[in-house]
């Protein structure tokens, strides 16, 4: 098994990563060309999970599409329905009532907390710090319980509808949400200290996966990846939707341009989200939560943007006056970050590939195995999970 590795020590080897990873929500395949231990070229190949959703949008009515939009992603399901509902509301020329807008903000921020703590756990796992991973995921349950209490669901909250939200946040829920947030804030403060002080984390993430400010801009990176390269860019602040124009908050940036900065940006965004939810709960206006809208949508087009946990999410809708859209386009933040990811990976060590890949938050949690192909000898061999882990932790 190790024979090929020794003989081809100086040759360029192609290493395919993926596409199957059990915990990865979007299977992706990366082919790395490596010289010794250094990555010299990266070729992404996506589409293994292409389900033809954009075509499916054209076959279904606007209400059915709400459920389809919910199922684009299992982690930022609320971001997609918010974006969808906004696009269709835009086409219809209606606006969600103020109370619905505040509820949308609360759910979106709870979702951001759950997504970021999920990612922070995964990042800890990728660098071999499994204790922190377990702690993050244990405390993530607190926010999952809050979401379940509000919506009855843990993953697909099904809160949004065209013209508002489907469920209200009742007054007896507010103290419970605040209690949950207090618990989360305490825990996250502790983890923030760990992230800033722990030697393992700084050694494995500082200066790893560098994405310079100019490259981040040129390659159209989005979300925390962009903000960790020092660019203050957040759809919530720049292009406010829902009730974000009424709520004060800070856009977190770090200028380390490395994985550590990406960890710090996301950690601090959790505190910002907690602050936003507290403000929204205190200032939520009374009134109705949804308005009724017609089935058919007048001809027109709309661009809708949302800051999903992973970054800018953009939907484009075009209607032709029927009950089904003529064209519906979705661009999720992970696709926007892939060119930037390829840039980060150039020149890195094989051992750093998992944490850099995880750095953009495609939920790269678990690696089954990788196949090594010696180009010259056309031999193949496979690393088991244990071998990969051992190599990762070196």
């Amino acid at each position, binding site marked *: 098994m190790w024979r090929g590795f020794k003989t081809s020590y100086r040759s360029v080897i192609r290493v395919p990563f993926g596409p199957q990873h059990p915990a990865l929500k979007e299977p992706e395949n990366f082919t790395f060309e490596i010289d010794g231990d250094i990555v010299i070229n990266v070729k*992404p190949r*996506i589409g293994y999970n292409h389900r033809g959703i954009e075509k499916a949008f054209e076959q279904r009515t606007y209400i059915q599409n709400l459920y389809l939009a919910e199922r684009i992603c299992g982690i930022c399901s609320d971001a997609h329905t918010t974006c969808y509902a906004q696009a269709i509301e835009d086409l219809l020329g209606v606006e969600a009532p103020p109370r619905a807008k505040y509820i949308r903000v609360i759910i979106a921020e709870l979702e951001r907390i759950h997504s970021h703590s999920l990612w922070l756990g995964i990042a800890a796992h990728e660098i071999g710090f499994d204790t922190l991973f377990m702690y993050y995921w244990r405390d993530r349950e607190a926010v999952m319980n809050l979401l379940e209490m509000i919506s009855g669901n843990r993953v697909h909250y099904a809160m949004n509808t065209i013209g508002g939200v489907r469920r209200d946040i009742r007054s007896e829920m507010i103290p419970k949400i605040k209690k949950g947030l207090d618990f989360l804030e305490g825990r996250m403060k502790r983890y923030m200290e760990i992230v800033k002080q722990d030697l393992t984390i700084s050694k494995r993430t500082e200066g790893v996966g560098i994405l310079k400010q100019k490259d981040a801009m*040129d*390659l159209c990176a989005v979300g925390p990846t962009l903000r960790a390269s020092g660019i203050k*860019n957040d759809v919530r602040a720049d*292009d406010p939707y829902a009730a974000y124009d009424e709520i004060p908050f800070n856009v977190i940036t770090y200028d380390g341009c490395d994985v550590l900065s990406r960890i710090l940006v996301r950690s601090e965004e959790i505190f910002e989200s907690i602050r936003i939810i507290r403000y929204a709960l205190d200032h939520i206006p009374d009134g109705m939560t949804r308005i009724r809208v017609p089935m058919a949508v007048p001809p027109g087009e709309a*661009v809708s943007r949302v800051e999903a946990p992973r970054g800018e999410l953009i939907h*484009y809708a075009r209607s032709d006056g029927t009950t089904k859209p003529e064209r519906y386009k979705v661009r999720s933040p992970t*696709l926007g970050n892939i060119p930037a990811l390829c840039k980060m990976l150039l020149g890195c060590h094989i051992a750093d590939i998992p944490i850099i890949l995880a750095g953009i938050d495609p939920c790269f949690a678990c690696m089954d195995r990788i196949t090594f192909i010696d180009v010259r000898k056309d031999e193949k061999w496979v690393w088991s999970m244990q071998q990969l882990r051992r190599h990762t932790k070196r």
Partner: protein
Amino acid sequence: MKIENSIIKKLRALLGERLIGVNIQKERRIFIKVTREAFKETIKNLVNRLGFKHLSTITGIDLGKELEVIYHLSYKGAIELSLKVSLPKNEAKLPTVTDVIPGALLYEREVHDLLGVIFEGHPDLSPLLLPEKWPRDVYPMRKEENLESLRKAIFENSHVEGL
């Protein structure tokens, strides 16, 4: 709306007649349409002179006789400008913008895969989303393809039995 109007004013001065349609839909949402000849020049001006540094995505639409490609660019993350250009279906070609915006690399490949628009000068237009064995002349997002014909395309070219 001040910035939106000044952007349109500058574009009118730069492009003149070649700017076919302008629609400031609401605050922070602009839709413009240019002729195919002026397309590359418009992109260059938008990126280098008017500060539209970020490309959100590229959308392709099949409108029956022609295809429409929409470039969603954003100005300082805030103003989203959608630049449209129409192409005849039998000559669906556009110059690449990857030399101006390197981030367009995957978006162009996506539109090429799904609608068959050829981006001239793109470094690599190999399939990004579709399988390697996908037939060359089937573009899933074109209107003549329906779920039945796509299922057939997958079935006939699949090496997996019973798919």
